[in-house]
């Protein structure tokens, strides 16, 4: 064990994770409940040799991330629902140009302005499908201040490894939680392959991830949001080029689900009912499962640390093993719907959209109702 232990707010831990992962560029616009990330990096990033820019809005913020990444930076922003909605166009641009960047989303109650200071997890589907066309971002979901640190680091590494936008899908309750966190350095840092001799937008390599030189490295770089060939030349009327490009930017993620997907399974071995949860609701679910066990109910928890690519294999493994699946979430059943696509058994959705966290007692009651 190494690294100092501090009591930090989740948002501050995400900022520390960014610094530890080698973030060199932050562009963002303040928005509740994410602003503490921006505040801390405004103070600390320039001192660490990076650049911080407060942009005029979130459309500009995500575009700045793409530009900075192509100048060789590891770039990041943080936002919440209304800002995330503005970023959808730029997200697609980052996806088709295969630009690594990290977006921390501290989810709040929506749609629209909603309740700025209240918790929700309503953006899960949006980050996967909110920009037009087919793409596949990576999304991780922390449940503690420690994971705000650890998963922000992992998001940077996965973004670099796969040349893809990576999300830290947190929420107000985790973002504003204060707990102890170990700011350790027990991890590897992934640096991008900047080979200038190979095409930057196509590869026969099995991982499907081409090298990404920066402007100034000596490559003749063309970066466009239009369909392009492996050297970046626009090919807007070639069916094969489009098929190949869109296929590869999705396959490079989906084919590596085993490397990217992480789940946390507890008490599942003999479980008759599984609670599938993520983010702050995972904490409620763990407390609920422990209470149920004390009452003699064989309940287990499958916590989804990775949300995208969706942990299909891990969900399918529950089918036949447990009789019922309960999915508590602070939205109208976004992940419950995904779970249903992968199991034949009963999936019961516990939805709460009142701006409050789901308390353990609500999950205990729902499980008992389902088993009755």
């Amino acid at each position, binding site marked *: 064990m190494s690294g100092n232990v501090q*009591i930090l707010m989740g948002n501050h831990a995400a900022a520390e994770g960014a610094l530890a992962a080698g973030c060199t560029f932050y562009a963002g616009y303040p928005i*509740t409940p994410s602003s503490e990330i921006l505040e801390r990096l405004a103070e600390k990033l320039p001192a660490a040799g990076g650049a911080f820019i407060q942009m005029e809005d979130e459309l500009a913020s995500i575009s700045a991330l793409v530009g900075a990444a192509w100048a060789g930076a590891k770039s990041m922003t943080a936002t919440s629902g209304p800002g995330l909605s503005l970023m959808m166009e730029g997200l697609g641009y980052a996806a088709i140009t295969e630009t690594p960047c990290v977006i921390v989303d501290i989810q709040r109650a929506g749609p629209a302005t909603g*309740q*700025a*200071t209240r918790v929700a997890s309503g953006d899960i589907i949006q980050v996967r499908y909110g920009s037009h066309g087919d793409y596949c971002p990576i999304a991780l979901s922390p449940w503690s201040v420690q994971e705000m640190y650890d998963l922000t680091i992992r998001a940077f590494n996965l973004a670099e490894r796969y040349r893809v936008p990576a999300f830290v899908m947190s929420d107000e*309750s985790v973002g*504003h*939680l*204060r*707990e*102890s966190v170990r700011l350790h350095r027990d991890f590897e840092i992934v640096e991008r392959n900047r080979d200038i001799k190979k095409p930057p937008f196509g590869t026969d390599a099995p991982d499907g991830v081409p090298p990404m030189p920066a402007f100034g490295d000596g490559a003749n770089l063309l970066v466009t949001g239009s369909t392009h060939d492996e050297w970046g030349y626009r090919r807007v009327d070639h069916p094969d080029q489009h098929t190949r490009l869109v296929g590869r930017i999705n396959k490079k993620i989906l084919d590596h689900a085993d490397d990217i997907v992480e789940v946390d399974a507890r008490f599942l071995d003999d479980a008759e009912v599984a609670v599938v949860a993520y983010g702050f609701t995972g*904490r*409620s679910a*763990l*407390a609920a499962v*422990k209470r149920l066990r004390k009452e003699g109910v064989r309940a287990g928890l499958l916590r989804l640390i990775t949300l995208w690519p969706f942990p299909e294999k891990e969900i399918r493994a529950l089918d036949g093993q447990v009789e019922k699946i309960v999915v508590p979430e602070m939205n109208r059943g976004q992940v419950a719907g995904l779970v249903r696509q992968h199991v034949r058994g009963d999936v019961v959705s516990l939805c709460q959209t009142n701006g409050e*966290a789901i*308390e*353990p*007692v609500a999950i205990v009651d729902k499980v008992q109702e389902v088993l009755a």
Partner: protein
Amino acid sequence: MTEWPVGVRFGGLGGQGLITLGAVLAEAGALAGLRVAASQHYGSRARGGATYSDVILSAEEIDYPHIDHPDILVVLAQQAYDLYAPTLDAKGIILADSFFVKPPAGHKVLQVPGTRTAIEEAGNQVSANFVMLGALVGFAGLVGEKDAIAAVHHLVKQRFLEVNLKAFALGMKLGKSEDRCR
């Protein structure tokens, strides 16, 4: 000996420094070797509106970091008293700032002259929250005085440090001698 876990809720109005108190108590608890979790519940207004911050102090890992029923409620405004007193655990205790909170007859409440002490003795009304924190630590223990003071030093801005340390010390005295809390 304190029976862990203990859940403390600081209730009041936005701007009274409740989230700061939560952060200070959590850090003091961590310095004492406890597991801690501090959370907050607030509105979008910079000032006003009922607000609370919660702290769990525990000897063991904290699964769920929010509090359903606080063991101790420290309350700095009538509106917050009305909202949060009913959430109190059956065996819970309340410390109320007597300047702003008038508990209904029959309610068992430790009335602390937080705001009055802040104005008359500490010299600044904004330090009333730290008088209340001092009273909590003086009355209930939970964390050591040295750890609390270290946390104040770490988390309070330099220009408010002196007045808040003074307010905390005055609150400690009040909390230790219950009969002065009327």
